[in-house]
């Protein structure tokens, strides 16, 4: 961060502080959101995600520091007004107006003084995009949670924002409507190439949607990186406790069989179950309790399809278990009981065999 002129940064926060009752609730030395990227702020409840979102959208008074959009500081009321016309925001509650779905989606366009004909066309497009065209004339008060949040998203995307802020947009939805909306949003973000900042406490949601993860604790960002970096190499114990409960690996589908397939991860083939196409990009998640470790050398094939030899990188205590970080040519995390740890004499640098079944691999299509 030496150069004043930042290259690909669409939005940048420098040294921002928000105080409440004299104490900083937000203290971010630097945050860069690159053009066309989706960044997720993840962290436990109360870590300041929502406040940071409001601050980034210049809806909150900063006590220190500035926000830059396209390299220009948002430091006057004119700059703020112009910036707010280019962003959109969706909250956990849909916050719809007491009007029809159509009128709700048209609100931002009316504020911008768009012609009725253009409004009609844009609204129709957005309603279709979010699969709520049939609800256009329905009162916003008579929608299900999923429909209401789709309306809120359509209203946000209708103004064709340069950047969109989504604050826990799926948190109050039931699992089926959440899954379908996450899928749709993922597709729409890709298609429109809209820069997005998403606040969520759901790691899987963040993983599914984002290019970059920023982990927040107590009002500050403790780690920023790709999902893989953050999940596999958490910066510290608290990040590890929040995100690092699974091994996350991205790879390409190398071969498909009947119902099973092999994923190539950093030159190693890993077997998993599911319907995918060859060449498809996927992310594999392996829960640590499903990984078994032994000090025997692998003989032939065990019942577990995936058997790898590796070295212990790090062991950290976790109550009744130990979390063991392995390097098998790719990073892998396993849980080992205190008893097993003693019996096997595991310590940093020990050569071990790790195995897990093909069904233990949870596959996410990118």
């Amino acid at each position, binding site marked *: 961060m030496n150069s004043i002129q930042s290259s690909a940064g669409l939005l940048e926060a420098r040294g921002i502080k928000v105080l409440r009752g004299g104490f900083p609730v937000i203290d971010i030395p630097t945050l860069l959101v690159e053009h066309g990227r989706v960044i997720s702020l993840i962290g436990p409840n109360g870590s300041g995600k929502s406040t940071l979102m409001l601050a980034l959208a210049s*809806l909150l008074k900063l006590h220190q520091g500035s926000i830059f959009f396209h390299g220009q500081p948002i430091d006057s009321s004119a700059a703020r*007004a112009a910036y707010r016309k280019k962003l959109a*925001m969706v*909250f956990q509650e849909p*916050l719809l107006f*007491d*009007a029809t779905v159509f009128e709700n989606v048209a609100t*931002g366009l009316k504020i911008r003084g768009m012609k009725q004909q253009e409004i009609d066309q844009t609204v129709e497009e957005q309603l279709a995009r979010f699969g709520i065209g049939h609800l256009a004339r329905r009162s916003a008060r008579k929608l299900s949670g999923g429909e209401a949040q789709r309306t809120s998203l359509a209203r946000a995307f209708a*103004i064709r924002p340069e950047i969109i802020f989504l604050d826990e947009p799926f948190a109050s939805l039931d699992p089926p409507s959440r899954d379908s909306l996450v899928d749709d949003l993922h597709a729409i973000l890709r298609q429109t190439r809209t820069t997005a900042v998403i606040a969520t406490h759901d790691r899987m949601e963040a993983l599914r949607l984002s290019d970059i993860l920023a982990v927040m604790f107590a009002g500050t960002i403790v780690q920023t990186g790709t999902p893989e970096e953050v999940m596999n190499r958490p910066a510290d114990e608290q990040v590890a406790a929040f995100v690092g409960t699974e091994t996350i690996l991205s790879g390409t589908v190398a071969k498909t069989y009947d119902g099973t397939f092999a994923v190539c991860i950093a030159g190693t083939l890993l077997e998993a179950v599911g319907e995918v196409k060859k060449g498809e990009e996927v992310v594999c998640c392996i829960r640590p309790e499903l990984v078994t470790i032994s000090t025997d050398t692998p003989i032939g094939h065990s019942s577990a399809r995936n058997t790898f030899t590796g070295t212990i990188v790090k062991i950290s205590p976790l109550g009744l278990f130990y979390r063991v970080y392995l390097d098998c040519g790719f990073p892998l995390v396993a849980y080992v009981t205190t008893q097993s740890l003693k019996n096997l004499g595991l310590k940093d640098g020990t050569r071990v065999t790790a195995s897990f079944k093909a069904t233990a691999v949870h596959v996410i299509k990118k």
Partner: protein
Amino acid sequence: MDLIVEGIWKALLLLFTLDPEVLSITLLSLAVSGAATLISLVLGVSLGFAIALTEFRGKKFVISTINTGMGLPPVVVGLFVSIFLWRNGPFGFLGILYTPLAMVIAQTIIAAPLVMGITVAAIQHLPRNLRYQILALGATRLQMMRLLVREARLPLLAAVMAGFGGVISEVGASIMVGGNIKGYTRVLTTATVMETSRGNFDIAIALGIILLALCFIINAVLTYVQQRERPR
């Protein structure tokens, strides 16, 4: 019993013959209370918005003061407005005591806290993040106010009804600062009081019917506006 039947009969006669005196009393009532409601609306809604939307020290105290003001006894208002407008009072030089203007002032003091109190409650009742949502849609402060008014239109119309209902039926302050002067400051309520004390029950009943009918018609219109255009 005869008294009542005869009273109602004469009252209807007065109504249907459009007695000029009754008509002028009715129109003055409407004008004074209408003006007071309108001024209360401008004052109450704008101040109510300002109070609801800003954070400041003593906000709770201000709100409870307004809420107390919602139940201000009209005679007390009448007393203080009289003192202020009295010939030797601070605003005596204006010479407006015993004029319709003084009545408008007194009725505004009665209705404004009603409108303000309901406005504050209505705006505070809206979701906290709604303001952020509206600003994030690119709205100016004025556009935000308009959208919030639209969102709170049901309670705000209730505020209009409460304000108007409160002042058109009020008698204490009107008689004290207006003086019930025939053809000048005589309104429906003050006339009803006077005619009843004189034993002219027919006229009193006629005035009472008009007052009730007015309240009903105006509230019916406002209720219609309030319930209209609600998407189904």
